C-alpha cells in the first residue's frame, strides 16, 4: 500500500506547475475533512463486520471507498434468492448459492485497489466458543442483526478489557432501525468544534498591549487609520476605559453602550469599517477569558488523580493543561489562529506575528508542565484544540435493557426513540423463541417482560411495534443505505479520533423520517 502523504507534503514537494499524486487527488475531498492524520488512522484500521447482509455491505461500502486498511466479513451463509434481491454487492441471481462473504468481499474490493478484503466463512458461534482472541484483534467490530445470545457473548467479551475493540451493534426491521456504539472511553482532541478560541482582548498579553499603546491613532495617516485591526482598537479602547474606571471593564448595560459609542467616536471618517467591526466585537472586552466550563469539568476526571507514566498521553496532556490554567493569566494556552479582519496587509501580518510569538511562548511553558515526553506534533494539536477537547465514557451494550430505572427514564425523556428500541429488542428476543409470524401481541408481551410491572407504554409505542410486526425480517435497501451512511460516519469518527461519535443508542424512523438518540 502506498504510504499516506499529507497535503502540505504533497503540495510543497511538487514543482511549480505540477500537481499532487493520484492518491492525494483521489482522496482530496475527504482529506479536507480529516487530514492526513485521520487518513493514516483509517489506513491502519482492520474492521470486522459480522454478516454480509445488505446493511453490512452498505456500511462497508462507505469505509472501503475512503480507504480503510483492511476489512473482514465473517459469514458462513450462502447467498439466498432473497439476499440477491436487496444487496448491491451481490450479482443478482448469479450469486445465489455462493458464499455470501466471498461474493460481497469480491464486489466491495472492486471499489478500491488500496483496500484488503477478507472473506471468513467460519461460524460466528463456533468462533465465540473456541477462539475469542479472533475478535479482539480488530480495530472495531460491527454486528448487524446478530441473534441476542451471540451478541451478548460478543459484547461481554469486548467489554471485558478496556484495550479491546469498540463494538457497533445494528438492528433493523423494515422502516425502523437502531445502532449503538460500545466503548469504555474515547478521547478527542480534534473535535472540529465551530467555537473559536478566545483572542484574549480582555487579557491582552504584554506585546499586544504595548503595541496598541504605542500607536497614536489621532496622528495617523488617514489610510492607516482605516486599517487598524479591530483587535488593536479594542485593546486600546479597553485600556483607556479601565484607566478611567478603577481598572474595571464595562459592566452595566449603560457602560457597555457608552464604551461602544466611544469606539465609534474614534472614527475620523464615517465609512471606517474597522471601527464598525470593533464596535460589533466589543463584547469581547467584557466577556472574561477563563477556562471554559466543559474543559474545567475534564479536570475533575478520575484519570488525572491516578496518573502514572503509562497512562494515555491524552491524560498527561490534560494534566499539564490543568497546571497551566492554575497560573497567571488563568486561561488556556493562546492559539495563533487569527480571524480575518479589516486591516492592511502589514498591520494584519504584524498582529499575526505577535499572536504567533506569544502562542509559541505559552506552548513552551505548557511543555515544561508535562510529566512525560510527548511528540511535538501531538502537543501542537492538543494546544491548538484545548478549548474543544472531549472525553466520552460509554456503556456496555445491553445495559439499558437490563436496568429498570434506566428504561423508565428513557421512556419518559425519549418516548418515541425508546419505543423503537424496545420493539427491536423484543423482535430479536422473539425471533429465537418462535418461528413464523411475529404478532403485535407477542412483541408487546416481550416488551412488557423487559419493563417493571404496571409500567405505561408511550403513545408512540403502537406505531413502532406495528411497523416491526409488519416487516420483521425486511432489510430494506433504503434503510440499509441510510444506516450505511450513518454508521460508517461513526466508525470513521471512532477510528480517526476526530469529530464526536455518539455514545448511546441512535434510533431511526423512516416512516416519519427522523433520527433520535436515547
Amino acid at each position: 500500500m502506498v504510504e499516506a502523504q499529507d497535503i502540505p507534503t504533497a503540495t510543497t514537494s511538487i514543482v511549480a506547475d505540477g500537481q499532487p499524486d493520484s492518491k492525494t487527488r483521489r482522496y482530496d475531498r475527504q482529506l479536507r475533512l480529516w487530514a492526513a492524520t485521520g487518513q493514516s488512522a483509517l489506513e491502519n484500521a482492520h474492521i470486522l463486520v459480522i454478516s454480509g447482509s445488505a446493511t453490512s455491505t452498505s456500511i462497508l461500502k462507505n469505509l472501503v471507498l475512503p480507504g480503510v486498511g483492511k476489512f473482514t466479513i465473517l459469514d458462513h451463509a450462502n447467498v439466498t434468492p432473497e439476499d440477491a434481491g436487496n444487496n448491491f454487492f451481490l450479482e443478482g441471481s448469479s450469486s445465489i448459492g455462493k458464499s455470501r462473504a466471498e461474493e460481497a468481499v469480491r464486489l466491495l474490493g472492486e471499489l478500491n485497489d488500496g483496500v484488503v478484503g477478507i472473506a471468513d466463512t467460519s461460524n460466528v458461534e463456533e468462533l465465540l466458543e473456541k477462539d475469542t482472541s479472533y475478535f479482539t484483534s480488530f480495530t472495531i467490530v460491527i454486528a448487524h442483526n446478530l441473534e441476542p445470545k451471540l451478541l451478548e457473548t460478543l459484547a461481554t467479551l469486548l467489554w471485558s478489557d478496556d484495550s479491546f475493540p469498540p463494538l457497533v451493534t445494528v438492528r433493523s426491521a423494515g422502516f425502523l432501525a437502531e445502532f449503538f456504539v460500545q466503548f469504555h472511553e474515547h478521547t478527542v482532541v480534534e473535535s472540529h468544534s465551530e467555537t473559536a478560541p478566545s483572542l484574549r482582548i480582555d487579557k491582552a498579553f504584554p506585546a499586544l498591549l504595548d503595541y496598541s499603546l504605542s500607536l497614536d491613532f489621532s496622528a495617523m495617516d488617514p489610510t492607516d487609520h482605516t486599517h487598524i485591526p479591530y483587535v488593536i482598537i479594542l485593546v486600546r479602547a479597553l485600556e483607556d476605559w479601565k484607566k478611567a474606571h478603577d481598572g474595571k471593564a464595562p459592566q452595566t448595560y449603560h457602560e457597555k453602550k457608552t464604551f461602544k459609542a466611544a469606539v465609534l467616536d474614534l472614527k475620523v471618517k464615517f465609512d471606517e469599517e474597522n471601527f464598525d467591526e470593533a464596535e460589533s466585537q466589543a463584547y469581547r472586552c467584557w466577556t472574561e477569558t477563563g477556562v471554559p466550563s466543559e474543559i474545567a469539568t475534564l479536570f475533575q476526571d478520575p484519570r488525572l488523580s491516578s496518573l502514572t507514566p503509562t497512562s494515555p498521553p491524552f491524560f498527561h496532556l490534560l494534566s499539564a493543561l490543568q497546571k497551566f490554567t492554575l497560573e497567571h493569566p488563568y486561561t488556556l494556552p493562546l492559539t495563533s489562529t487569527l480571524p480575518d479582519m479589516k486591516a492592511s496587509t502589514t498591520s494584519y501580518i504584524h498582529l499575526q506575528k505577535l499572536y504567533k510569538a506569544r502562542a509559541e511562548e505559552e506552548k513552551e511553558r505548557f511543555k515544561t508542565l508535562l510529566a512525560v515526553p510527548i511528540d511535538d506534533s501531538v502537543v501542537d494539536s492538543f494546544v491548538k484544540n484545548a478549548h474543544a477537547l472531549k472525553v466520552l465514557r460509554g456503556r456496555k451494550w445491553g445495559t439499558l435493557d437490563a436496568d429498570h430505572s434506566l428504561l423508565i427514564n428513557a421512556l419518559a425523556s425519549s418516548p418515541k426513540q425508546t419505543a423503537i428500541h424496545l420493539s427491536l429488542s423484543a423482535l430479536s428476543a422473539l425471533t429465537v423463541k418462535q418461528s413464523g409470524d411475529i404478532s403485535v401481541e407477542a412483541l408487546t408481551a416481550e416488551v412488557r417482560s423487559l419493563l417493571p410491572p404496571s409500567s405505561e407504554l408511550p403513545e408512540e409505542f403502537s406505531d413502532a411495534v406495528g411497523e416491526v410486526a409488519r416487516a420483521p425480517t425486511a432489510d430494506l435497501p433504503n434503510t440499509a443505505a441510510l444506516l450505511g451512511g450513518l454508521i460508517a460516519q461513526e466508525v470513521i469518527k471512532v477510528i480517526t479520533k476526530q469529530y464526536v461519535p455518539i455514545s448511546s443508542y441512535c434510533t431511526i424512523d423512516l416512516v416519519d423520517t427522523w433520527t433520535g438518540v436515547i
Partner: protein
Amino acid sequence: MGSQFTDWQGRYYHIDQVLDKPGPRTDPAFLAGDGVKDFLRNQAKILVIGAGGLGCEILANLALTGFKDIHVIDMDTIDISNLNRQFLFRTKDVGKPKATVAAEFIMKRVPGVKVTPYFGKIQDKDDDYYLQFNLVICGLDSVEARRWMNATLVNLVDPENPESLKPLIDGGTEGFKGQARVILPTITSCYECSLDMLNKPTAFPICTIANTPRLPEHCIEWASVLEWPRVKGDKKLDTDDPEHIGWLYTAASARAKEFNIEGVTWSLTQGVVKNIIPAIASTNAIISGKSRTLETTESVDNTHPAAACCNEAFKIATSSAAYLNNYFMLIGTDGVYSYTFEHEKRDDCPVCGGESLELSISSEFTVEQLIELLVEKQDIQIKKPSLSTPTTQIYLQAPPQLEEATRPNLTKKVSELVPPEGEVTVTASTLPFNLSLRVTYT
C-alpha cells in the same frame, strides 16, 4: 417489460413485506399487494438529476427498491477525485460521461432495470420531456440547476390536470451534514421559498484582493480573479484543469511571498477556486462595494441524504407509508443530530407564491445601487440582473448595444423611472423566471 425473465422467486422478499401489508401510519388508500407492485415495477417512471456523489447512491437504491424505468441526466465527466465516493465509477472510467457509465453499471448489477442516460444539461429538455415522469429526484451540487429544475416543475403544474404535478425530492450534502426534502410544486414550500436558508457564499471584497491581502485565500482569489484575465486575456479558467490550478498556485504563491503571507498550498488553491471549502474563518461580516460571489459549491458528499431521498420516492410511489413533510436535516459532526420540520411556503416566493416581492428603498437610490442591493439579497441570489418596467427598459446587461443604450440610467434615481408602487421586472441569465418587484420609497 420482460420482468418475468429476471425476477427470480424471492427477489423482492424484503421489499414485499412493506408492500403486502400496511403499517400503523399507512394511508388507508394504500393498495397492498399486486396493484402497488405492478405500478412500482412496471409503470413508474422516475428521473434522477445528477450522477455524482448523491446520484450514484440514488440510482443504486432506486434500482434495488424495484423502480425499473429510471432516467438520469448529468453534464459532467468523471474525474479522479470522484472515485473516493462515486462508487459506480472506476479508474478506467475517468474522462467518460457520468450519466452513461452510471447507467451501464446499474443495468449490469441489477438485472431487469432500464436506466436511460442523458449526457447534457437539464435545460436542454422541454416540458414534454419532464411531463413523462412520475417523480423527480435531484442530487445536485449546484444552486442554479436546482432553481431551474424547481421553477420548471412549478410551472408545469396545470390545476386541471393532477398528473402534471410532479413531486420533487431534493438531496444535499456537505461533509458530515446532509438534508433531504420533499417538494410538491405549488402545494408545499418550494426550493425558491427556502433560498435564504443557504449559507451566504464566501465573498471577498475586490479591494482586499487587489490592495490589502491578509490571508492565503486572498492571494488565490487575486490570482484567479485579477491575474488570470490580465495575463491570459479571454482564455477561460477551467478549474478542473490541473495545469490551470498549477498556474494559479504559482501566481498566488509569489504574491503571498511578496506580502509575507503564509499558507498558500495546491490543495487550498483548488479549494478556493472550486469553492470546496464552504467558508473561511472570517468575522468580516460587512461586505461592501463590488464583490464577487462564487457560484458553485463542490462538496464532500455523504450517503445518508441519498438514502433518505430514495426512501421518500419509494413511499410516494407506493403509498406504503406517509412521506416526509417536508424537510429533514442531519448533522453528524457532534454525535448524530437531526431535525425534521415543515418548511413554510412563502407567499411572496417569486416562483410559487403569486404575490410580487415588496421592496422598500430610499427615493434617493440610484439604479446602480438598486442592482447592488439585489445582488446581495440572500433570498433572491442573482448575478447581473437586468431591470425593466412595462414601459421602460431601465438597464439591460445584454446585448452590448442595449447595455450601452441603457447605461446612462445607472446613475439616475430609481424614483425618476419607476412610480411609487410601480412594478419592476428583474431578469438574469442565471434566473429561470422573471422576478417581479413592487417598489415603494421611503
